[in-house]
């Protein structure tokens, strides 16, 4: 109840343009990212702390931080 109405940031991948290089996986401090079947990066929203390191590292700049309900 204490978190009701609060927002937090999570990283979101644009799945259409992700090149699945795995640079994001390497820098994620929470091991919240994995490359699914060599096609696209997938971020586990509940594990992501929204630090933005993956977005900074992504060579294709296809990861962005979005606010979601906590």
């Amino acid at each position, binding site marked *: 109840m204490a978190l009701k109405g609060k927002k937090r940031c999570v990283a979101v991948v644009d799945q259409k343009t992700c090149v699945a290089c795995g640079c994001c996986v390497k820098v994620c401090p929470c091991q919240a990212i994995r490359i699914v*079947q060599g096609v696209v990066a997938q971020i586990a929203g509940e594990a992501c702390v929204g630090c933005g390191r993956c977005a900074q590292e992504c*060579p294709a700049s296809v990861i962005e931080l979005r606010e979601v309900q906590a």
Partner: protein
Amino acid sequence: MKKHWYDYLWIASLLYLLLGFFNILFAWLGLLCFFIPLVFSVARGSKGYCNRYCGRGQLFGLLGGGFGLSRRKNVPQWMKSHYFRYGFLAFFLIMFFLMLWNTYLVFAGAQDLKQTVTLLWSFRLPWNWAYQGTLFHPGVAQFAFGFYSIMLTSTILGLITMLLFKPRSWCVYCPMGTMTQLICKARRGNRA
């Protein structure tokens, strides 16, 4: 984060490029960078090579990130479009088969060995100091010169985009990366 042995594969990539200046036949080792990613994608349906073992990507990451040689700007939109990525892959494959054709001509005796390295598919540089003649057929050396040209060209392109954009911008349009992702997509499609 804990470092693993494969985090140091950038040394192998650097060594590979340097060895080509001394003996061109070392260029044959570059085939590993072609076959290992293909094996990963075909046999396991993963981009495990890109994700973990690509020494070239690590080298760009180190130079651009660690040494701060990159402007860290976003790559332009067109560079990550499917048109460009697949177009570059097609161009790369055409040039690769052209290189194989030239190798065949030397093996067949229809063409003499050219001791040159061609950069960016246009600039032919004399490279005769790296070839002293071997026990092998000149065609073996011709393949080495051609393959090293491809490896050096892609390194130069990767370095340029590393400087201009993000450290590992090469990964966005790397033909091997695009090809293995396509294979993985096809595998996923077949299994779905």
